[in-house]
């Protein structure tokens, strides 16, 4: 479960065309800078976003990304990304999370690797119902 948070401004971005992948990265970078993230934290969350939106574009046939700045009860700032697609879904989640597994372009480090770049990782998927990945990285 994600921790209890008070949510501050959010934005929704399309992931429909290849240019959207760059735009999504820019949006996450800007939000990470606004949230006061260090360079390393910025780099990790932008890289995670890049993996997730590429997955949604290539495997999910496109979708949307939502970016939210969140705070936990202790006042710590984080970024929450939700990347949703209406694609075929993931039949074998355990396999998809394994390093080295990929059904498309890339190295298959997409999901397993992305999980290591964030603090909270939630995957909702069902064959035929699409995939939603929600991640949070907190300011270190």
């Amino acid at each position, binding site marked *: 479960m994600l921790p209890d948070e008070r949510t501050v401004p959010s934005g929704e971005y399309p992931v429909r065309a290849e240019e959207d992948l760059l735009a999504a990265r820019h949006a996450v970078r800007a939000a990470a800078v606004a949230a006061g993230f260090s*360079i390393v934290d910025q780099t990790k969350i932008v890289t995670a976003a890049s993996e997730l939106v590429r997955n949604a574009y290539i495997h999910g046939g496109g979708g949307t990304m939502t970016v939210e700045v969140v705070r936990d009860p202790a006042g710590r700032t984080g970024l929450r990304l939700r990347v949703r697609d209406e694609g075929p879904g993931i039949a074998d989640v355990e396999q998809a999370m394994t390093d080295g597994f990929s059904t498309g372009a890339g190295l298959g480090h997409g999901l397993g690797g992305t999980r290591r770049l964030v603090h909270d990782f939630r995957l909702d998927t069902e064959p035929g119902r699409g995939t939603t990945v929600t991640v949070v990285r907190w300011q270190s």
Partner: protein
Amino acid sequence: MNTGLPILRLGDVLLGGLLSDLDDKTALAFTDELTTRIANEGIRGVVIDISRLEIVDSFVARVLMQLAATGRLLGTRMIVAGMRPAVALTLTELGLQLTGVQTALNAEQAMELLGWRRPEEAPHAS
């Protein structure tokens, strides 16, 4: 496709650089252009400066690994130079070590690895 990315030739070495807003198509076109030039121009070494790259995700990592492997098959030594520390930390956490890709701290060190020397280290003519 013209990538708009400079690829300089210095003797039998090519020096290219990737820019921060690298998209997938540009990365692949850069690979094609470099590979063609390696073969056509008898290139012995290639340095790819990535100091401007703010992120390297699994796609770009794969492009670099394939480029190094292709270069090796063509008899060329490829060195990736100038990775930002934050990018290096992120890549290791992603589980990507760029296996098979030689790296250097910066482009100058990469050129030295390929046998180039700074002018001040050369003996004076007079």
